[in-house]
């Protein structure tokens, strides 16, 4: 009998604090797939690479390294469902293994809190686990409710696959792994011209200049519309999801243009395809719905129309 694979589950900020539906959906999906997710007790912000990495690289690397040491102590790899957290943890793990000067600086700081970066664990994204460990064929075997007829646009985001020569995950100019995982759901992939451009939120731009960051997002939406539209946009990153989800409300305010896209994290898409009900993980809790007082377009998503019993 083979042992169940186990990963330290790095939550970050956006998933547990703004989109807990992703956290719950991930737990359902990984449990279905026979993979253990372990709590990473005492983990902090990754910390956000484009924000805190831009302010002070040593602080960024030291806080990231502290998170890594939590997993090192337990001896299991990390998995995360956020491209930003992945970038911080994967990059710092990589850089600390290669750059002795940085490692010395970081370990000097860590020594003061009784920790040491050893470089003994790997950092993965859910996508790596789904593709490399489980395999798309086995993911497909768990699909009991194929989302047939649902038009699905993808937003892979930037930091899981770029830079391709360093990350060695996928060809970031012609990626296929994220698409293969999403296609196991039975939804129909819709290609659009601007699939690979950034959502606009990264690099501290969302904080620096909201309107500029939303203009990226708007370009994406227009590109999807030009490709005939989509019923759902799927992303492997909660920060991209936040930008695409609440971004619609903000775009309406700032640009006076209304978009009505349902946005899902890949974990939520798979939870639905695996037969879980949207209420089981709180799909309707996404911020655009609470802000607009709307619901997911159940009919378009090919899910049972659900009347709200209570107000």
């Amino acid at each position: 009998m083979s042992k169940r694979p186990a990963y330290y589950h790095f939550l970050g900020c956006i998933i547990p604090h703004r989109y807990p539906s992703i956290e719950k959906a991930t737990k359902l999906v990984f449990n279905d797939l026979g993979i253990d997710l372990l709590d990473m007790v005492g983990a902090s912000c990754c910390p956000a690479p484009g924000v805190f990495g831009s302010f002070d690289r040593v602080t960024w690397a030291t806080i990231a390294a502290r998170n890594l040491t939590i997993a090192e102590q337990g001896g299991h790899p990390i998995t995360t469902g956020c491209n930003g957290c992945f970038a911080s943890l994967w990059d710092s793990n990589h850089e600390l293994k290669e750059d002795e000067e940085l490692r010395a600086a970081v370990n000097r700081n860590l020594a003061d809190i009784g920790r040491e970066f050893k470089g003994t664990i790997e950092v993965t994204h859910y996508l790596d686990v789904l593709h490399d460990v489980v395999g798309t064929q086995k993911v497909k075997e768990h699909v009991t409710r194929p989302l047939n007829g649902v038009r699905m646009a993808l937003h892979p985001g930037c930091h899981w696959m770029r830079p391709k020569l360093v990350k060695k995950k996928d060809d970031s100019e012609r990626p296929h792994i994220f698409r293969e995982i999403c296609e196991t759901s039975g939804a129909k992939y819709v290609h659009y011209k601007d699939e690979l451009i950034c959502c606009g939120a990264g690099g501290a731009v969302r904080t620096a200049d909201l309107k500029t960051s939303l203009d990226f997002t708007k370009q994406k939406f227009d590109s999807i519309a030009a490709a005939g539209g989509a019923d759902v946009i799927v992303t492997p990153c909660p920060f991209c999801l936040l930008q695409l989800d609440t971004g619609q409300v903000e775009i309406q305010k700032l640009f006076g243009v209304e978009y009505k896209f349902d946005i899902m994290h890949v974990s939520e898409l798979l939870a639905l395809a695996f037969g879980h009900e949207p209420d089981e993980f709180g799909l309707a809790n996404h911020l655009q719905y609470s802000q607009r007082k709307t619901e997911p377009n159940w009919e378009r998503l090919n899910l049972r129309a659900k009347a709200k019993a209570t107000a």
Partner: protein
Amino acid sequence: MGEIIRETISAGDMDPTFIEKIEKAGADRIRTCLSCGTCSSVCPSGRRTAFRTRELIRKALLGLREDVLSSPDLWLCATCLTCLERCPRQIKITDAIIIMRNMAVKEGFMLPQHRKSAQKLLQTGHAVPLDDANRDMRRELGIPEIPPTVHSSEEALAQVKEIMRLTGFDTLVEGEGTGAKQE
């Protein structure tokens, strides 16, 4: 007929050590830049703002330190890494921008909203801390109301705060000044 404005760069504005520092901090191959403009042409930010990656790199190579570090444009890169993927010289452009941002912050050029984000990290250990609405949502979903992170461990939070004290991050980001030139 518009007046032709000639901008002259004087030797006094050029700091030859600037590019050395950027290079040493990890922006390999930056001196091999051809100024071909691939970076600017693929930049989704440059498409809608005055931010020009080629110009930024050129200025850095010329040593126009003050000009580069004080410019709010430095903060319009979304770090999507597309320029880095397509650079024919394989220059780590995004790394160079991050390095220059670190230098800018050290010299006090920091947007007030970025200081606010840094304060959140200092206080809570998270860039986006848990709020009441999400506590309720978590409880309804049957997952721990407070995640098993620094939010549920005083000791863990104290460690993260101690790191920020040791690196000087706390004093680096304090205050309310904008630093960056607002145009």
